[in-house]
């Protein structure tokens, strides 16, 4: 089996600060995702990447940048942290391309706290 590791588990920053979340997977999966989870609002897609150096925007990409420099890692940068975006950020991966019948595997999440 494999694992998705997200760091840090808690990210505390000041309003307006640029903050980066990191994700590593050892499944050797092609496609990786960043979702944001707000209480009571489910999961919303920020960015995804179907292969190294590929980036695709999700519905919530404004205010975020992403980077996929290696197959195994996918990072997300909050370009200017705001108090209204305190949430849990979830990284996920899936083998190949296309989700039909494929499982999305999630990390445990990173909680963003803006002070």
């Amino acid at each position, binding site marked *: 089996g494999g694992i*998705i590791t997200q760091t840090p588990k808690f990210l505390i920053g000041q309003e307006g600060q640029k903050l980066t979340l990191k994700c590593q997977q050892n499944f050797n999966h092609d*496609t990786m*995702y960043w*979702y944001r989870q707000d209480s*009571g*609002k*489910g*999961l*919303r*897609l920020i960015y*995804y990447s*179907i292969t190294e150096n590929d980036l*695709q925007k*999700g519905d919530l990409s404004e205010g975020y940048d992403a980077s996929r420099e290696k197959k195994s890692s996918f990072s997300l940068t909050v370009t200017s942290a705001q108090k209204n975006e305190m949430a849990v950020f*979830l990284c*996920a991966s899936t083998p190949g*391309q*296309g*989700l*039909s*019948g494929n*499982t*999305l595997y*999630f*990390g*445990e*999440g990173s909680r963003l706290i803006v002070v």
Partner: protein
Amino acid sequence: QQQVRQSPQSLTVWEGETAILNCSYENSAFDYFPWYQQFPGEGPALLISILSVSDKKEDGRFTIFFNKREKKLSLHIADSQPGDSATYFCAASDYNVLYFGSGTKLTVEP
């Protein structure tokens, strides 16, 4: 616009009862519908899924009923156990992206 809707937002059942969680979607192109289970402090994990060519999928105590014409599906959890207490997310896929509902928080009372 929310592509996937879930109800109820929260549900409490007694141990041994059947819990029914509902889901509906907008996009006719969606063809894959997984349900994810999430415990506090953990990431969601796949529980059971169905493709749009089927109208029912069973896995132990968990059953998905799917109605393509009405764009609705439901998750039935039979003989509910306290360990089933979690948040359940319905999701729908259009190839590369999974769209999630807002979740149903299930509590099973002993």
